[in-house]
């Protein structure tokens, strides 16, 4: 169309401006900060790779990485796993489909902070819901947020929060599988568990990959659950809270930025690895 060139520029400009000012520029500035020792924003000194050397020998960061990876493992196994199982089940029933779809999505719309507060009430040693139940059954109370339990106690709401999201993605993918595939399977006498493993899962493999990538990058961003439930204490420090502490609480912008860059690199590496492992022939229909 005539004059399109002008509109291309005008229409793309606001997005380009926003992304440049609040994403690209800050990202490269973070990279830049990671080579400086800072005191506030005004006093900084170039120190080369010092921050990165500190990164390698930082034991707290190592622990935070391990904790994040542990939560990631739970998320991949339980969150994605439960979502997939629930989706297969909903795909196989006839009644109440809509009900389950809406209800399973409930936690997704609730903020992580609100869910964390809810779980604070569950886990409280003296008066929490869980210990109430245990006491009612005549059992010993459990210290849910102790050094040994705390990370798992935080993983539970983290997993629960987003099962519904991946569930909806899976159900949507399954609803796109043409009916004839299932008819053919029926004629061949394939049903139940076998149908799921041999037919449904291979057909939605590309969606499973998307979900796994989302789950990995999502877990690296975990912040609110840890911050509200345990304030990152008792062996629950994760990368998100560690970065926040370094950059914002200690106001160490240089090292905080280095941690952030490390998080980005780690995320990309793990996502690439996962995609490599899951690589197989894409099925199109």
């Amino acid at each position: 169309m005539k004059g399109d060139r002008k509109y291309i520029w005008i229409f793309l400009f606001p997005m380009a401006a926003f992304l440049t000012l609040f994403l690209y520029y800050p990202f490269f500035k973070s990279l830049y900060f990671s080579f400086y020792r800072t005191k506030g924003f005004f006093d900084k000194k170039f120190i080369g790779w010092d921050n990165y050397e500190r990164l390698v020998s930082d034991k707290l960061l190592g622990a935070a990485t391990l904790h994040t990876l542990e939560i990631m493992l739970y998320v991949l196994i339980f969150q994605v796993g439960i979502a997939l199982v629930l989706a297969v089940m909903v795909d196989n029933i006839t009644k109440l489909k809509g009900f389950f779809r809406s209800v399973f999505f409930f936690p997704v719309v609730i903020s992580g902070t609100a869910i964390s507060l809810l779980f604070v009430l569950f886990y409280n040693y003296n008066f929490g819901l869980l210990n109430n139940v245990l006491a009612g059954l005549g059992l010993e109370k459990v210290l849910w947020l102790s050094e040994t339990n705390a990370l798992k106690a935080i993983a539970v709401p983290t997993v629960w929060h987003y099962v519904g999201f991946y569930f909806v993605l899976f159900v949507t993918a399954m609803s796109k599988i043409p009916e004839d595939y299932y008819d053919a399977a029926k004629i061949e006498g394939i049903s139940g568990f076998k149908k799921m493993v041999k037919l449904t899962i291979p057909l939605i493999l590309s969606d499973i990959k998307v979900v796994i990538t989302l789950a990995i990058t999502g877990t690296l961003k975990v912040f609110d659950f840890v911050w509200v439930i345990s304030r990152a204490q008792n062996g629950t420090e994760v990368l998100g809270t560690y970065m926040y502490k370094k950059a914002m609480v200690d106001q160490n912008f240089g090292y905080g930025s280095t941690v952030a860059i490390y998080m980005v690199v780690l995320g990309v590496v793990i996502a690439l690895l996962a995609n490599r492992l899951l690589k197989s022939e894409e099925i199109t229909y």
Partner: protein
Amino acid sequence: MQPAMQSKKRFRLGTALMYIVLSAWAMTTIYPLFWIVNNSFKESRDVMNKSFSLALDPVFINYTTAFDRINIGRSYVNSLIMSGGTVLFVLLFGGLAAYVLSRFTFRGKRFIFSILYATLLVPAFATVVPVYELLIKTSLVNTYWGLILPQTAGNLTFATLVIAGYMSTIAKELEEAAFMDGCNRWQMFTKVFMPVSRPAFASVSIFVFLWSYNDLFSALIFVNKEKVRPIVALLSEISSQYGTDFGLMATAVTLTVMPILFIYLFISKFIEKGLTEGAVKG
């Protein structure tokens, strides 16, 4: 007859089992919500000692505390303004960009798409320090813009990709007809493409609103003063300041969660429609 009947029986058993498992999971998503609402109508003492009993004679003390002492109403308004503003900007700018990227052919388009995909890999952590510096320098920290601007940028890529995916499926004839009617590109966007892409705009606005409303990390950093603090930041504050006032905590959670849940119930159909139609597969 025998094998057929057996398999039918097994089938029924399997179906029953599926309903049991599904209902069990549904319980985990419904009961905690019921529990928290129920407990918000009790005094703290009763939340602690009798958390399972029904609040048959509800007390509103927690609600008056929430509104009078910690001024939760103010945070509500703050949240609404900032998340609403973010959604508006994201829809407008993301919609425009999506329109260009899906309906125009020009050089460098693929390049722009690959940059957009790369953007998805940059978390808020990697931009927060310089953005904070920028907001301080422009004195936007602890103003509504201090949250709206970074969140708009943070959600634009997602919105653009989803809306562009939807718009690329719209028939070319529609565009040509509008052109015949003498529409220029701007009119074509507002009169044809925006209305036709309503499902995509709807699902994007829901997700952007949720992510913005629920984003604790940015709120703690950019807008943590009482007069601009959104509701998530207030919740975090409550958990550290009033961590022993169980009734108040239950009420705060209830007040945060319920409006969103009600809105969700009304528009859940849109979410699924938007997700089904090309939203997920990038």
